[in-house]
């Protein structure tokens, strides 16, 4: 289970409305490589991980991703807080505002709602960990794009923190991959139905 701690992992305090950045930040709240995607991806994949160390890293990074998802929600909320309807429309959020008002909703900046079709859980630990490594790199790239879109230090500081976490997670998943590769048995054959008594 999880216990909620009533604070963000890294302080977020955006003091002036910025609906333009709210829109961009949605990439990491409800986009394909978002923190929501990361958390659901890892926390779903962990059940079939064969090694206790890999179970631990997938579980614990998945848990940290939930805290990052919360940070993005806070950032979007604060960027929308106090925004005028003119600014919202100018930021290209007319459609978003019509459907969600100033509510925080997991969609990407183009309005495409989050879907678990973005994530995979193949049951093959190496396949899953390689996907996780790619996901961390894609999220790092997205954070770099986001950081290039603003010069507001109140937005850049949490983005810098989140970008750095992607780098660390990538490193840990790389170690998990090595652990998994060292476990591959010599007779690593794909399961076959040949000789199966059920005759299906």
């Amino acid at each position, binding site marked *: 289970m999880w216990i*909620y701690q*009533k*604070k963000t992992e890294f*302080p977020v305090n955006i003091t002036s409305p910025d609906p333009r950045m709210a829109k961009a930040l949605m990439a990491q709240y409800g986009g394909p490589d978002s923190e929501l995607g990361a958390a659901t991806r890892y926390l779903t994949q962990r059940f079939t991980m064969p090694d206790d*160390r890999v179970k*631990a*890293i997938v579980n614990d990074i998945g848990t940290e991703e939930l805290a990052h998802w*919360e940070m993005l929600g*806070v950032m979007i909320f604060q960027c929308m807080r106090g925004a005028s309807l003119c600014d919202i429309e100018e930021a290209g959020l007319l459609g978003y505002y019509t459907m969600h008002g100033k509510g925080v909703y997991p969609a990407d900046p183009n309005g495409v709602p989050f879907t678990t079709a973005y994530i995979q859980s193949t049951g093959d630990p190496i396949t899953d960990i390689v996907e996780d490594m790619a996901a961390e790199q894609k999220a790092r790239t997205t954070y770099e794009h986001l950081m290039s879109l603003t010069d507001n230090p109140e937005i850049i500081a949490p983005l810098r923190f989140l970008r750095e976490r992607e780098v660390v997670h990538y490193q840990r998943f790389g*170690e998990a991959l090595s652990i998994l590769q060292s476990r591959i048995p010599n007779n690593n054959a794909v399961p076959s139905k040949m000789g199966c008594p059920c005759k299906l």
Partner: protein
Amino acid sequence: MSCNCNCQNMNRYMDMTEKDLLMQISQIQFVCVELNLYLDTHPDDEAAKKDYLSYSRMLHELIKTYEMQYWPLHGFGHSDTETGCWVYSEWPWD
């Protein structure tokens, strides 16, 4: 809506000392998160285990100090403090 601790009448917003203490908690907790993830893939690293234990103790003490002085930080029975109120303390997005 009310709770028994009368905290509705207290200032919901944090003063600087509270912010500083919360920042200190976040910093030490960050060290713990980092060491935890490192130990996940290096569970036999004795130096890291020692660091994790000492920073965990530090974190525990800081959280206890905060919760005795201000508000409970955790729900579901993980904050045994009579000070403040879970519902009325400032939410992280406000």
